[in-house]
Protein backbone atom coordinates (compact mmCIF):
# COMPACT_ATOMS: atom_id res chain seq x y z
CA UNK A 1 0.00 0.00 0.00
CA UNK A 2 1.29 3.43 -0.93
CA UNK A 3 0.10 6.80 0.30
CA UNK A 4 0.83 9.88 -1.73
CA UNK A 5 -0.44 13.41 -1.99
CA UNK A 6 -0.78 16.06 -4.65
CA UNK A 7 -3.20 17.77 -6.97
CA UNK A 8 -6.18 15.90 -8.32
CA UNK A 9 -4.82 16.18 -11.85
CA UNK A 10 -1.57 14.53 -10.77
CA UNK A 11 -3.09 11.45 -9.12
CA UNK A 12 -1.06 8.39 -10.09
CA UNK A 13 -2.30 6.67 -13.21
CA UNK A 14 -0.69 3.44 -12.03
CA UNK A 15 -1.84 2.23 -8.65
CA UNK A 16 -2.51 -0.90 -6.67
CA UNK A 17 -5.42 -1.98 -4.52
CA UNK A 18 -5.25 -0.24 -1.19
CA UNK A 19 -3.22 2.73 -2.36
CA UNK A 20 -4.38 6.04 -0.96
CA UNK A 21 -4.08 9.42 -2.64
CA UNK A 22 -4.67 12.60 -0.66
CA UNK A 23 -5.69 15.47 -2.89
CA UNK A 24 -4.71 19.04 -2.17
CA UNK A 25 -7.12 20.85 -4.47
CA UNK A 26 -10.27 18.82 -4.71
CA UNK A 27 -13.54 18.07 -2.90
CA UNK A 28 -13.24 14.48 -1.71
CA UNK A 29 -11.60 13.45 1.53
CA UNK A 30 -9.28 11.02 -0.23
CA UNK A 31 -9.01 8.54 -3.09
CA UNK A 32 -8.54 4.81 -2.50
CA UNK A 33 -7.51 2.40 -5.24
CA UNK A 34 -9.43 -0.82 -5.77
CA UNK A 35 -6.74 -1.95 -8.17
CA UNK A 36 -8.42 -0.67 -11.30
CA UNK A 37 -9.79 2.75 -10.44
CA UNK A 38 -9.63 5.42 -7.81
CA UNK A 39 -12.61 5.38 -5.46
CA UNK A 40 -13.57 8.89 -4.36
CA UNK A 41 -14.58 9.04 -0.70
CA UNK A 42 -16.35 11.84 1.10
CA UNK A 43 -17.39 11.61 4.74
CA UNK A 44 -17.45 7.84 4.46
CA UNK A 45 -19.49 7.87 1.25
CA UNK A 46 -18.18 6.72 -2.11
CA UNK A 47 -18.87 9.38 -4.69
CA UNK A 48 -18.95 8.87 -8.41
CA UNK A 49 -17.33 11.87 -10.07
CA UNK A 50 -19.38 13.19 -12.97
CA UNK A 51 -17.95 12.67 -16.44
CA UNK A 52 -18.29 16.03 -18.09
CA UNK A 53 -18.00 14.67 -21.63
CA UNK A 54 -21.23 12.72 -21.19
CA UNK A 55 -23.20 15.95 -20.90
CA UNK A 56 -24.24 18.50 -23.48
CA UNK A 57 -25.23 22.10 -23.03
CA UNK A 58 -28.80 23.30 -23.06
CA UNK A 59 -29.16 27.09 -22.99
CA UNK A 60 -25.48 27.59 -22.28
CA UNK A 61 -25.43 31.36 -22.79
CA UNK A 62 -22.25 32.64 -21.18
CA UNK A 63 -21.93 29.73 -18.77
CA UNK A 64 -18.67 27.82 -18.57
CA UNK A 65 -17.26 24.64 -17.06
CA UNK A 66 -14.10 23.84 -15.08
CA UNK A 67 -13.14 20.20 -14.47
CA UNK A 68 -9.51 20.51 -13.36
CA UNK A 69 -10.31 19.69 -9.76
CA UNK A 70 -12.28 16.56 -10.41
CA UNK A 71 -15.88 17.64 -10.18
CA UNK A 72 -17.75 19.76 -12.66
CA UNK A 73 -17.84 23.42 -11.69
CA UNK A 74 -20.32 25.53 -13.64
CA UNK A 75 -20.14 29.30 -13.56
CA UNK A 76 -23.00 31.35 -14.97
CA UNK A 77 -22.83 35.09 -15.53
CA UNK A 78 -25.35 37.70 -14.49
CA UNK A 79 -28.70 37.60 -16.23
CA UNK A 80 -31.51 40.12 -16.00
CA UNK A 81 -34.00 37.44 -17.00
CA UNK A 82 -34.41 33.90 -15.74
CA UNK A 83 -32.01 31.46 -17.33
CA UNK A 84 -31.35 27.87 -16.39
CA UNK A 85 -27.96 26.75 -17.68
CA UNK A 86 -28.13 22.99 -18.12
CA UNK A 87 -25.76 20.11 -18.62
CA UNK A 88 -27.97 17.29 -19.87
CA UNK A 89 -27.49 13.67 -20.94
CA UNK A 90 -29.68 10.86 -22.19
CA UNK A 91 -31.52 9.01 -19.42
CA UNK A 92 -31.10 5.24 -19.08
CA UNK A 93 -33.98 2.82 -19.54
CA UNK A 94 -36.47 2.87 -16.70
CA UNK A 95 -36.52 2.12 -13.87
CA UNK A 96 -33.57 4.19 -12.73
CA UNK A 97 -32.33 6.28 -9.85
CA UNK A 98 -30.08 9.30 -10.09
CA UNK A 99 -28.26 10.51 -6.98
CA UNK A 100 -26.14 13.64 -6.94
CA UNK A 101 -24.29 15.95 -4.60
CA UNK A 102 -23.59 19.57 -5.36
CA UNK A 103 -21.82 22.47 -3.70
CA UNK A 104 -23.60 25.73 -4.52
CA UNK A 105 -21.99 29.15 -4.45
CA UNK A 106 -24.51 31.85 -5.09
CA UNK A 107 -25.23 34.91 -2.99
CA UNK A 108 -28.58 35.43 -1.31
CA UNK A 109 -29.43 38.81 -2.71
CA UNK A 110 -31.66 40.60 -0.26
CA UNK A 111 -33.36 43.83 -1.14
CA UNK A 112 -32.44 43.77 -4.80
CA UNK A 113 -34.89 41.12 -5.86
CA UNK A 114 -38.23 42.05 -7.30
CA UNK A 115 -41.31 39.99 -6.64
CA UNK A 116 -40.95 38.01 -9.80
CA UNK A 117 -39.00 35.19 -8.21
CA UNK A 118 -35.58 36.50 -9.09
CA UNK A 119 -32.72 34.68 -7.53
CA UNK A 120 -30.44 31.74 -7.98
CA UNK A 121 -30.89 28.02 -8.03
CA UNK A 122 -29.21 24.72 -8.74
CA UNK A 123 -30.20 21.09 -8.77
CA UNK A 124 -30.85 17.94 -10.77
CA UNK A 125 -33.85 16.74 -12.71
CA UNK A 126 -35.63 15.37 -15.73
CA UNK A 127 -35.91 16.88 -19.21
CA UNK A 128 -38.20 15.98 -22.06
CA UNK A 129 -36.15 16.73 -25.15
CA UNK A 130 -39.14 16.89 -27.49
CA UNK A 131 -40.88 19.66 -25.57
CA UNK A 132 -37.98 21.12 -23.60
CA UNK A 133 -39.92 20.76 -20.34
CA UNK A 134 -37.93 20.46 -17.11
CA UNK A 135 -38.75 19.15 -13.65
CA UNK A 136 -36.11 19.31 -10.94
CA UNK A 137 -35.24 19.22 -7.27
CA UNK A 138 -32.69 21.63 -5.94
CA UNK A 139 -31.81 24.63 -3.89
CA UNK A 140 -32.61 28.21 -4.66
CA UNK A 141 -32.79 31.59 -3.11
CA UNK A 142 -36.06 33.29 -3.87
CA UNK A 143 -39.56 33.96 -2.69
CA UNK A 144 -42.64 31.87 -2.24
CA UNK A 145 -45.35 33.81 -3.99
CA UNK A 146 -45.47 37.34 -5.30
CA UNK A 147 -44.23 39.90 -2.82
CA UNK A 148 -42.99 37.26 -0.41
CA UNK A 149 -39.92 37.46 1.70
CA UNK A 150 -36.93 35.65 0.29
CA UNK A 151 -35.44 32.52 1.70
CA UNK A 152 -33.14 29.67 0.98
CA UNK A 153 -35.37 26.91 -0.33
CA UNK A 154 -35.34 23.26 -1.15
CA UNK A 155 -37.68 23.10 -4.12
CA UNK A 156 -39.21 20.89 -6.70
CA UNK A 157 -39.59 23.25 -9.64
CA UNK A 158 -40.99 22.78 -13.13
CA UNK A 159 -40.26 24.86 -16.21
CA UNK A 160 -41.65 24.75 -19.73
CA UNK A 161 -38.19 25.82 -20.93
CA UNK A 162 -34.88 27.00 -19.45
CA UNK A 163 -35.98 30.61 -19.87
CA UNK A 164 -39.56 30.29 -18.63
CA UNK A 165 -40.82 31.27 -15.20
CA UNK A 166 -40.94 28.18 -13.06
CA UNK A 167 -43.70 26.87 -10.89
CA UNK A 168 -43.08 25.25 -7.56
CA UNK A 169 -44.44 21.78 -7.10
CA UNK A 170 -43.03 21.87 -3.60
CA UNK A 171 -41.58 24.63 -1.43
CA UNK A 172 -39.58 23.90 1.66
CA UNK A 173 -37.39 26.16 3.73
CA UNK A 174 -33.79 25.12 3.70
CA UNK A 175 -32.47 26.39 7.03
CA UNK A 176 -32.78 22.92 8.57
CA UNK A 177 -30.13 21.58 6.23
CA UNK A 178 -27.32 23.52 7.85
CA UNK A 179 -25.91 20.72 9.98
CA UNK A 180 -25.13 18.29 7.20
CA UNK A 181 -21.79 18.56 5.45
CA UNK A 182 -23.59 18.29 2.15
CA UNK A 183 -27.20 17.77 1.07
CA UNK A 184 -27.76 14.90 -1.33
CA UNK A 185 -30.42 14.93 -4.02
CA UNK A 186 -32.09 11.98 -5.68
CA UNK A 187 -34.70 11.44 -8.39
CA UNK A 188 -36.23 8.18 -9.56
CA UNK A 189 -38.20 7.21 -12.62
CA UNK A 190 -40.05 3.90 -12.40
CA UNK A 191 -41.48 4.33 -15.88
CA UNK A 192 -44.80 5.41 -14.45
CA UNK A 193 -43.82 7.66 -11.54
CA UNK A 194 -41.26 10.39 -10.95
CA UNK A 195 -40.14 10.87 -7.37
CA UNK A 196 -37.87 13.41 -5.71
CA UNK A 197 -35.80 12.92 -2.56
CA UNK A 198 -33.14 14.56 -0.44
CA UNK A 199 -30.82 13.28 2.26
CA UNK A 200 -28.62 14.65 5.01
CA UNK A 201 -26.34 11.62 5.15
CA UNK A 202 -26.23 10.31 1.58
CA UNK A 203 -27.48 6.90 2.62
CA UNK A 204 -31.02 7.43 3.82
CA UNK A 205 -33.34 9.54 1.70
CA UNK A 206 -36.65 11.20 2.38
CA UNK A 207 -39.23 11.55 -0.35
CA UNK A 208 -40.55 15.07 -0.81
CA UNK A 209 -42.63 14.86 -3.96
CA UNK A 210 -43.96 12.37 -6.48
CA UNK A 211 -46.24 12.46 -9.49
CA UNK A 212 -47.13 10.42 -12.55
CA UNK A 213 -44.57 10.56 -15.30
CA UNK A 214 -46.99 12.32 -17.63
CA UNK A 215 -48.51 14.63 -15.04
CA UNK A 216 -46.25 17.47 -16.12
CA UNK A 217 -44.38 16.05 -19.07
CA UNK A 218 -46.28 15.63 -22.32
CA UNK A 219 -45.12 12.02 -22.63
CA UNK A 220 -42.11 11.27 -20.46
CA UNK A 221 -38.66 12.65 -19.79
CA UNK A 222 -35.81 11.16 -21.76
CA UNK A 223 -32.91 13.18 -20.36
CA UNK A 224 -31.34 13.95 -17.00
CA UNK A 225 -29.56 17.16 -16.13
CA UNK A 226 -27.93 19.30 -13.52
CA UNK A 227 -28.40 23.03 -13.64
CA UNK A 228 -27.44 26.42 -12.33
CA UNK A 229 -30.08 29.11 -12.73
CA UNK A 230 -29.36 32.80 -12.56
CA UNK A 231 -31.94 35.55 -12.45
CA UNK A 232 -29.83 38.38 -11.12
CA UNK A 233 -28.40 41.38 -12.91
CA UNK A 234 -25.60 42.03 -10.46
CA UNK A 235 -23.87 38.79 -9.49
CA UNK A 236 -22.48 35.68 -11.10
CA UNK A 237 -23.14 32.30 -9.54
CA UNK A 238 -21.44 28.93 -9.41
CA UNK A 239 -22.13 25.32 -8.53
CA UNK A 240 -19.87 22.27 -8.25
CA UNK A 241 -21.20 18.80 -9.00
CA UNK A 242 -19.13 16.24 -7.07
CA UNK A 243 -21.31 13.14 -7.35
CA UNK A 244 -23.52 11.81 -10.14
CA UNK A 245 -24.59 8.20 -9.84
CA UNK A 246 -27.13 6.07 -11.68
CA UNK A 247 -27.31 2.81 -9.68
CA UNK A 248 -30.30 0.58 -9.19
CA UNK A 249 -33.36 2.12 -7.62
CA UNK A 250 -32.71 2.52 -3.96
CA UNK A 251 -34.88 1.61 -1.05
CA UNK A 252 -35.83 4.78 0.69
CA UNK A 253 -35.68 5.11 4.39
CA UNK A 254 -36.91 7.91 6.49
CA UNK A 255 -34.43 9.42 8.86
CA UNK A 256 -35.49 11.43 11.86
CA UNK A 257 -33.25 14.21 13.03
CA UNK A 258 -31.65 13.92 16.41
CA UNK A 259 -28.76 15.49 18.16
CA UNK A 260 -25.58 14.13 16.74
CA UNK A 261 -26.96 12.90 13.43
CA UNK A 262 -27.29 14.53 10.07
CA UNK A 263 -30.80 15.93 9.66
CA UNK A 264 -32.91 14.74 6.80
CA UNK A 265 -35.96 16.63 7.91
CA UNK A 266 -38.43 17.85 5.38
CA UNK A 267 -37.79 21.56 5.93
CA UNK A 268 -41.31 22.91 5.77
CA UNK A 269 -40.82 25.33 8.59
CA UNK A 270 -43.81 24.75 10.82
CA UNK A 271 -44.32 21.07 10.45
CA UNK A 272 -41.07 19.30 11.20
CA UNK A 273 -39.07 20.24 14.23
CA UNK A 274 -35.32 20.02 14.28
CA UNK A 275 -35.43 17.46 17.05
CA UNK A 276 -37.80 15.02 15.45
Amino acid at each position, binding site marked *: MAVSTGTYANRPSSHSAGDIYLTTDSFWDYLVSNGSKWRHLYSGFECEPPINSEFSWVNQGGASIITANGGVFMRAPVSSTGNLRLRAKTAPATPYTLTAAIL*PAFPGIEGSISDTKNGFGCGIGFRESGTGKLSMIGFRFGGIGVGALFYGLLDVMQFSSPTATGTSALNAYAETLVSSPITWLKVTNTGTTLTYFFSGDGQNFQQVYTEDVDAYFTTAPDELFFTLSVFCATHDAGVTLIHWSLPNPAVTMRTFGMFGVLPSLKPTGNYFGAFG
Partner: protein
Amino acid sequence: MAITTGTYAGKPGAPSSGDIHFLTDSFYDLLYYNGASWDHLRHGKLLTLPPSFAWINQGTASVSTTNGGETLTDAAGASAHQCRIRKTAAPSTPYTVTMAYLPTLRGANYLFGGALFRESSSGKLRSLHLGFNAAGVIEVYAWNSPTAPVTQLAVFRSEVLFSSPLIFWRLEDDGTNRKFHFSGDGINFIQLYSEGRTTGMTANEVGWFIDPYSQAQTATLIHWKEA
Protein backbone atom coordinates in the same frame (compact mmCIF):
# COMPACT_ATOMS: atom_id res chain seq x y z
CA MET B 1 5.23 5.01 6.23
CA ALA B 2 3.60 5.04 9.63
CA ILE B 3 -0.01 5.71 10.52
CA THR B 4 -0.77 7.04 13.97
CA THR B 5 -3.80 8.34 15.78
CA GLY B 6 -3.91 10.82 18.59
CA THR B 7 -4.36 14.38 19.66
CA TYR B 8 -3.21 17.30 17.58
CA ALA B 9 -0.64 18.22 20.18
CA GLY B 10 0.51 14.59 20.26
CA LYS B 11 1.38 14.32 16.58
CA PRO B 12 4.74 12.59 16.10
CA GLY B 13 7.68 14.90 16.58
CA ALA B 14 10.05 13.01 14.31
CA PRO B 15 7.92 11.78 11.42
CA SER B 16 9.06 10.42 8.10
CA SER B 17 7.86 11.49 4.70
CA GLY B 18 4.51 9.90 3.93
CA ASP B 19 3.48 9.40 7.55
CA ILE B 20 -0.17 10.00 8.40
CA HIS B 21 -1.58 11.16 11.71
CA PHE B 22 -5.31 10.81 12.34
CA LEU B 23 -6.64 13.30 14.82
CA THR B 24 -8.90 12.80 17.79
CA ASP B 25 -9.40 16.41 18.83
CA SER B 26 -9.06 18.63 15.81
CA PHE B 27 -10.80 20.04 12.72
CA TYR B 28 -8.75 18.47 9.96
CA ASP B 29 -9.44 15.08 8.41
CA LEU B 30 -5.82 14.04 8.82
CA LEU B 31 -2.22 15.24 8.74
CA TYR B 32 0.23 14.05 6.10
CA TYR B 33 3.96 14.53 6.58
CA ASN B 34 5.47 15.83 3.35
CA GLY B 35 9.08 15.43 4.46
CA ALA B 36 9.38 18.90 5.90
CA SER B 37 6.10 19.67 7.63
CA TRP B 38 2.64 18.29 8.32
CA ASP B 39 0.11 18.97 5.58
CA HIS B 40 -3.32 19.70 7.02
CA LEU B 41 -6.06 18.20 4.87
CA ARG B 42 -9.81 18.55 5.00
CA HIS B 43 -12.32 17.43 2.38
CA GLY B 44 -9.59 16.90 -0.19
CA LYS B 45 -8.01 20.30 0.18
CA LEU B 46 -4.65 21.33 1.53
CA LEU B 47 -5.25 23.95 4.20
CA THR B 48 -2.67 26.40 5.46
CA LEU B 49 -2.23 27.09 9.15
CA PRO B 50 -2.74 30.72 10.21
CA PRO B 51 0.28 32.94 10.77
CA SER B 52 1.13 34.74 13.98
CA PHE B 53 -1.39 37.53 14.30
CA ALA B 54 -1.37 40.59 16.53
CA TRP B 55 -4.32 41.79 18.56
CA ILE B 56 -6.52 44.76 17.92
CA ASN B 57 -9.09 45.49 20.65
CA GLN B 58 -8.43 42.24 22.46
CA GLY B 59 -10.50 43.13 25.52
CA THR B 60 -11.57 39.93 27.23
CA ALA B 61 -10.96 37.77 24.17
CA SER B 62 -8.39 35.00 23.99
CA VAL B 63 -6.96 32.59 21.46
CA SER B 64 -5.95 28.95 21.55
CA THR B 65 -4.03 26.80 19.09
CA THR B 66 -4.24 23.57 21.08
CA ASN B 67 -6.39 21.77 18.53
CA GLY B 68 -4.77 23.25 15.44
CA GLY B 69 -5.85 26.40 13.69
CA GLU B 70 -6.56 29.42 15.85
CA THR B 71 -9.61 29.51 18.09
CA LEU B 72 -10.78 33.00 19.01
CA THR B 73 -13.17 33.31 21.95
CA ASP B 74 -14.77 36.09 23.85
CA ALA B 75 -16.69 34.47 26.63
CA ALA B 76 -17.89 37.63 28.24
CA GLY B 77 -19.97 39.20 25.51
CA ALA B 78 -19.76 42.91 25.11
CA SER B 79 -23.28 44.40 24.86
CA ALA B 80 -21.99 46.58 22.07
CA HIS B 81 -19.94 46.18 18.95
CA GLN B 82 -16.50 45.04 20.03
CA CYS B 83 -14.65 43.46 17.15
CA ARG B 84 -11.92 41.24 18.54
CA ILE B 85 -9.39 41.35 15.75
CA ARG B 86 -6.39 39.26 14.82
CA LYS B 87 -4.37 41.09 12.18
CA THR B 88 -1.19 40.92 10.17
CA ALA B 89 0.51 43.04 7.52
CA ALA B 90 -1.11 42.86 4.11
CA PRO B 91 0.95 41.37 1.30
CA SER B 92 2.14 43.56 -1.54
CA THR B 93 -0.48 44.20 -4.17
CA PRO B 94 -1.81 42.42 -6.08
CA TYR B 95 -2.76 39.85 -3.48
CA THR B 96 -5.48 37.55 -2.25
CA VAL B 97 -6.08 36.27 1.24
CA THR B 98 -8.24 33.16 1.42
CA MET B 99 -9.55 31.94 4.73
CA ALA B 100 -11.88 29.33 6.14
CA TYR B 101 -13.25 29.39 9.63
CA LEU B 102 -15.72 27.45 11.72
CA PRO B 103 -18.03 29.79 13.61
CA THR B 104 -19.94 28.92 16.74
CA LEU B 105 -22.35 31.72 16.16
CA ARG B 106 -25.83 32.17 17.56
CA GLY B 107 -28.54 33.76 15.47
CA ALA B 108 -28.79 36.91 17.52
CA ASN B 109 -28.25 40.57 16.64
CA TYR B 110 -25.48 41.57 15.86
CA LEU B 111 -23.06 38.72 16.11
CA PHE B 112 -20.50 38.79 13.32
CA GLY B 113 -17.31 37.03 12.39
CA GLY B 114 -15.15 36.94 9.30
CA ALA B 115 -12.29 38.50 7.39
CA LEU B 116 -11.27 42.11 7.16
CA PHE B 117 -9.04 44.75 5.64
CA ARG B 118 -7.57 47.32 8.03
CA GLU B 119 -5.87 50.70 7.64
CA SER B 120 -3.40 50.92 10.50
CA SER B 121 -3.10 54.72 10.56
CA SER B 122 -6.82 55.33 11.08
CA GLY B 123 -7.99 52.02 12.44
CA LYS B 124 -10.70 51.85 9.77
CA LEU B 125 -11.95 48.45 8.65
CA ARG B 126 -13.76 46.76 5.81
CA SER B 127 -15.21 43.42 6.86
CA LEU B 128 -16.60 40.46 4.99
CA HIS B 129 -18.51 38.55 7.60
CA LEU B 130 -21.09 35.97 8.39
CA GLY B 131 -23.53 36.97 11.04
CA PHE B 132 -27.02 37.85 12.12
CA ASN B 133 -28.64 41.18 11.37
CA ALA B 134 -32.37 40.55 11.62
CA ALA B 135 -31.64 37.43 9.53
CA GLY B 136 -28.68 35.25 8.79
CA VAL B 137 -26.51 37.35 6.53
CA ILE B 138 -23.26 37.71 4.69
CA GLU B 139 -22.30 41.37 4.83
CA VAL B 140 -19.61 43.70 3.63
CA TYR B 141 -19.34 46.48 6.18
CA ALA B 142 -17.36 49.69 6.65
CA TRP B 143 -16.15 50.50 10.18
CA ASN B 144 -14.41 53.54 11.61
CA SER B 145 -13.03 51.37 14.39
CA PRO B 146 -13.67 47.96 15.98
CA THR B 147 -16.50 49.52 17.95
CA ALA B 148 -17.97 51.82 15.34
CA PRO B 149 -19.74 50.34 12.30
CA VAL B 150 -20.55 52.95 9.67
CA THR B 151 -22.14 51.58 6.54
CA GLN B 152 -23.48 48.33 5.26
CA LEU B 153 -21.94 48.13 1.80
CA ALA B 154 -23.54 44.86 0.72
CA VAL B 155 -25.82 42.26 2.27
CA PHE B 156 -26.80 38.77 1.25
CA ARG B 157 -28.92 36.19 3.01
CA SER B 158 -26.83 33.32 4.28
CA GLU B 159 -29.21 30.38 3.83
CA VAL B 160 -27.64 29.62 0.49
CA LEU B 161 -24.52 28.40 2.30
CA PHE B 162 -26.25 25.39 3.79
CA SER B 163 -25.11 22.75 1.35
CA SER B 164 -21.37 23.27 1.44
CA PRO B 165 -19.24 21.57 4.07
CA LEU B 166 -17.05 24.61 4.50
CA ILE B 167 -17.35 28.14 3.13
CA PHE B 168 -14.19 29.87 2.01
CA TRP B 169 -13.84 33.65 2.10
CA ARG B 170 -11.42 35.71 0.03
CA LEU B 171 -10.15 39.27 0.28
CA GLU B 172 -8.44 40.65 -2.80
CA ASP B 173 -6.54 43.84 -3.56
CA ASP B 174 -5.51 43.86 -7.19
CA GLY B 175 -3.77 47.22 -6.89
CA THR B 176 -6.83 49.06 -8.18
CA ASN B 177 -9.82 47.58 -6.43
CA ARG B 178 -10.62 45.94 -3.12
CA LYS B 179 -12.76 42.85 -3.63
CA PHE B 180 -14.73 40.41 -1.51
CA HIS B 181 -15.47 36.84 -2.60
CA PHE B 182 -16.79 33.55 -1.27
CA SER B 183 -16.72 29.94 -2.42
CA GLY B 184 -18.71 26.81 -1.77
CA ASP B 185 -15.95 24.44 -2.84
CA GLY B 186 -12.79 26.32 -1.83
CA ILE B 187 -11.50 26.49 -5.35
CA ASN B 188 -13.91 28.49 -7.46
CA PHE B 189 -14.91 31.89 -6.08
CA ILE B 190 -17.83 34.26 -6.68
CA GLN B 191 -17.33 37.99 -6.18
CA LEU B 192 -19.72 39.66 -3.77
CA TYR B 193 -18.54 43.26 -3.73
CA SER B 194 -15.86 45.54 -5.15
CA GLU B 195 -14.77 49.11 -4.51
CA GLY B 196 -11.72 51.24 -5.21
CA ARG B 197 -8.78 50.29 -3.02
CA THR B 198 -8.59 53.86 -1.62
CA THR B 199 -12.31 54.30 -1.11
CA GLY B 200 -12.73 55.35 2.51
CA MET B 201 -9.41 53.83 3.51
CA THR B 202 -6.33 52.19 2.07
CA ALA B 203 -5.70 48.86 3.70
CA ASN B 204 -2.21 47.88 4.75
CA GLU B 205 -3.34 45.10 7.07
CA VAL B 206 -5.61 42.08 6.84
CA GLY B 207 -7.08 39.91 9.54
CA TRP B 208 -9.98 38.01 10.95
CA PHE B 209 -12.34 38.75 13.79
CA ILE B 210 -15.38 38.02 15.87
CA ASP B 211 -17.83 40.62 17.11
CA PRO B 212 -19.51 39.08 20.14
CA TYR B 213 -21.88 42.03 20.60
CA SER B 214 -24.21 40.88 23.36
CA GLN B 215 -23.39 37.18 23.39
CA ALA B 216 -20.34 35.02 23.88
CA GLN B 217 -18.86 33.82 20.63
CA THR B 218 -16.20 31.41 19.43
CA ALA B 219 -14.74 30.80 16.00
CA THR B 220 -11.83 28.74 14.74
CA LEU B 221 -9.71 29.79 11.82
CA ILE B 222 -8.53 26.64 10.06
CA HIS B 223 -7.11 28.10 6.87
CA TRP B 224 -5.33 31.32 6.00
CA LYS B 225 -3.48 31.56 2.74
CA GLU B 226 -1.92 34.64 1.22
CA ALA B 227 -1.09 34.66 -2.45
